[in-house]
């Protein structure tokens, strides 16, 4: 499987990278770790004329924290770097947990945070070879008109399958983008669009440069639960990120729950705010779990069935909330 022909530009500065995007516009595509784009290019899903290789942008490879600005992570920080960062493990356990589950150690060494956030949406009918897709006549996302997951539907249901996005959503992170028009910072929840075709609120020439997690989220307990068949390599079939801030007596002060791999975008679950000020009650947990499966709408985009993925969202929310809520409490 050969790659299509393209030129590679390897700028050393962000300014130079922005210039490349200005010059080539839609002909250019951004690559960093290559873990998402290169296999997709082998399958003929993309054929840009120019690849903008960001790996040389040292300025975007950092992880830093201070009490004022919070946690800042450059887009080029690798997933391994996230998973190994002591500050993240200590203060943002949900992100640590999520990063550790991304793909495999080899892929985490290559994949970057920027790439993981901008991951293309995935689907059984889309992530196939050119030969395979031609045999089917393409799909709504590529070379066709029908969504084979929901043939009556006018939209594409390919799912967003990143692991770090739900963790960062739960942490109320913002994402920073740079373009010829300048810099903008947008809430991660506004960065995603629930449409498998266009799932990022990002102009083609915008470059994601990093994310920022408010310092207010530091020290919240958190966990990430991922459904997959193998404990390595696999993309999530469903993922649940949960964070919670508690009072000394175990009262929940604030909590957030986010889902991934069940919709075209990662989603914050509604109604979780009502947990504020409450002591642990199984009924409350059940209510949020129920809310979660109203938010998560898995279809047949992956090997596992939608029924099972829905079931697992419920189980994961239930387990994660219970774990976090009862952590440090004597179970009585």
């Amino acid at each position: 499987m050969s790659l299509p022909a393209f030129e590679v530009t390897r700028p050393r500065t962000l300014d130079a990278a922005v210039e490349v995007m200005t010059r080539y516009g839609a002909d250019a595509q951004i690559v960093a770790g290559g873990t998402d784009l290169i296999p997709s290019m082998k399958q003929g899903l993309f054929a840009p004329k120019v690849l903008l290789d960001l790996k040389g942008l040292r300025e975007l490879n950092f992880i830093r924290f201070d009490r004022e600005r919070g946690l800042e992570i450059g887009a080029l920080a690798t997933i391994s770097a996230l998973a190994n960062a002591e500050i993240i493990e200590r203060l943002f356990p949900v992100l640590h947990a999520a990063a550790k589950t991304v793909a495999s150690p080899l892929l985490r060494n290559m994949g970057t945070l920027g790439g993981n956030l901008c991951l293309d949406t995935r689907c059984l009918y889309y992530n196939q070879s050119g030969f395979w897709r031609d045999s089917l006549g393409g799909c709504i996302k590529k070379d066709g008109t029908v969504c084979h997951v929901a043939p009556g539907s006018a939209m594409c249901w390919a799912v967003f399958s990143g692991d770090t996005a739900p963790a960062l959503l739960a942490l109320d992170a913002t994402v920073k983008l740079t373009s010829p028009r300048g810099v903008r910072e947008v809430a991660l929840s506004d960065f995603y669009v629930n449409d498998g075709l266009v799932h990022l609120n990002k102009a083609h020439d915008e470059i994601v440069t990093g994310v920022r997690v408010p310092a207010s989220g530091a020290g919240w307990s958190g966990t990430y639960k991922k459904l997959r068949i193998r404990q390595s390599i696999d993309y999530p079939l469903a993922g649940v990120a949960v964070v919670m801030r508690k009072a000394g007596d175990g009262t929940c002060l604030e909590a957030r729950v986010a889902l991934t791999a069940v919709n075209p975008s990662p989603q914050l679950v509604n109604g979780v705010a009502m947990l504020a000020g409450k002591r642990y009650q199984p009924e409350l947990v059940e209510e949020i779990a129920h809310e979660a499966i109203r938010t998560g709408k898995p279809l047949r985009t992956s090997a596992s069935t939608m029924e099972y993925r829905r079931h697992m969202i419920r189980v994961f929310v239930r387990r994660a909330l219970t774990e976090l809520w009862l952590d440090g409490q004597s179970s009585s």
Partner: protein
Amino acid sequence: MSSSPQAPASPIGARIPMVDSVDKVTGLGLYTDDLTLPGTLVGRILHSPHAHARIRSIDTSAAERLPGVRAVATGQETPVKYGILPVGHDETIFAVEKVRYVGDNVAGVAAESEAIAEEALRLIKVDYEILPAYFDPEKSMLAEDNLIHENKPHNIERDFHHHFGDVEKGFAEADYVREDRFDCAEVTHAALEPHSTLAKYDASDSSVTVWSSTQVPYYLQLTLASTMQMPPEKVRVIKPLVGGGFGGKSEVIPLELAAAVLARKAGDPVKITYTREEVFYAHRGRPHQIVELKTGVTREGKLTAVEARIIQDGGAYCSYGVVTILYSGQLLNAMYAIPNVKFDGFRVLTNKPACGAMRGHGTVNTRFAFEQQLNKIAATLGIDPVEIRRRNLLQAPCMTVNDLRVLSYGYPECIDQVVEKSGWKDKYGKLPYGKGIGLAGSHYVSGAANPIIRSKMPHTTINLTIDREGIVTIFTGASEIGQGSDTMQVQIVAAELGIDVDQVKIVAADTTRTPVDLGSYSSRVTFMAGNAAIAAARDAKQKILAAAAETMATAPQNLVIEDGKVCCRDARRIALPFAEAARLAIGSNDVLEATGSYTTPESSQGGKFKGAGVGPSPAYSYCAQTVEVTVDPETGEVKIDRIIAAHDCGKALNPVCVEGQVIGSVWMGLGQAVQEEMLWENGRLMNAGLLEYRSASTLESPPIEPIIVESNDPEGPFGAKEAGEGSLAATIPAVAHAVYDAVGVWIDTLPITPEKVLKALERQKPGVRSQKSE
């Protein structure tokens, strides 16, 4: 043996590294795709996008005109049919009139680069008339028209109907009769090395040389000759290192012929290496199999009759199918004493890639069904699953009702060993809810007693040369595919000749330089090539001792070779170094030559009924396993905690290799048990890659503890039998049994996914859970 004070360590039973291991750990060993000849072109194959279609026309002119394209080939040029079985010649190199599955081979291209070859494929225009296609074997069996092959009515490749004893009588004698339907998903080998072939045509003498990732160089030579219409002696097949086979390379795979045809046409060498997706279309894996099984037992659990109706979804071509369906019935036997056995087997064609031989060929899904049903029966009758097996053991040596000869039978000891080591008695039925232990057994042939192409020729021949420095070189057709074939032969020859393994070199699997061996399949190599190696070494030894005896002024029968020296039995002090003795035997020749062959004894070759040829083997391996699991009743997830596998390999010639084979088999069985599955939708494979076909990583792979049981087969080389396949089948029913023990549900459909467990738990009658926890 004599009581020499320093008896030299025999290489037999020694834990020595494989002879090619240094090549493998340094990356210097060469696999087919690592080879390149000057001017090598890239070959690519055009595949059918349709599951079933008639080819109205093919226009290759645009592809031929593309600069850099050196040859384009289509089916009309090479219409000779081939197939691994003489009764199943139904494939052509490229489709001639019809395509029969998505991925079928339509045309080939050789070009100066991969990109040009791929572009050329896009330029080939094929006009198809799409035909109705069949994907479900039970529906395909009802087909009246649009048959996949015109000469196969109802799309049935072959059916067999065997009846040994009298099952009606057997069921009448039974106190308990049970019927179940089992459904086993299709799985594939997924060897890590994608198939690869390099072919070179020499116009000066009209010969072709093919380097290929194959388990069967000899069959490849014959098939290249027949399809290219060349005499076999003009075809040379060389097998470089092979990166795993598991049966997926045990017959001729389309790229092997396509590369040779393109090389002949282009006049330059052509290499084709499959993409991983193409590997999945080449397939030849284990078919989707439906087993309707009925078993009768007495109150005490004694088997009275077994009746099986088996349907295999064989895909679009015969491949090994006739053998696979026969194995699935024949090897109901030779495990337990069953007086009455009936088998109705149907190998059905569908519009999907051909299934073929995969590790545990034909036996695995039937064994799952049988062992699962036996465990259910034991549970119903309140008999310990260990005990019900002990009550039905064979009394070896014996002949089974279907004329299989069993000489060595280590199964009872395998059971004893796993029961002991696992702490079975304290665990089965006694672990807390969610934890369980299961038990099952399995067996396999040590090579087929009857070759695929019936003949009186030996199954394998080994030649030796010994040079003046005493270096022994083995010339063998046997194919090393990672299982230790080369190492085994080196060890045996060194042991027989009383020399160090470092003194023995091996030249293997080159059809011009090495004698005929049928290939590495059906676990035949240790038994057959091992016996041939003994025969060849003895031939050499006899010649050396005869020459040494003259010099040492004694009779040859007084001499032995030990520790690299020819010694006199009575007076060991007078010793002649091996090399010196060899020089005496060489005399005025260049080297000393010796040869040995192996043919199965007639008594092992089975009965006379239709289909009797498949199943017979000179020896059977046996295996018993316990599997411990934790089942999460809320998610249905099954975590494998521990597997103990006792395998009767007759004699472990090299315990590292035997353990590696047993562990590898168990692990592959585990994959089939819980997570591997080919997913189809309208004839399209949904998971034709290693990302979506989920071969386990380290993290789902539990500790597997092998136990070697040595029953010392009377005909095996040093008592050895097979080790590389027999353990696979037991893992699956043992996992299913452990799931039952953990949460009380039987899963009869493979793989045992969390969702299936969960659904079964939802259907479970209330109360089961409390019973278990009490």
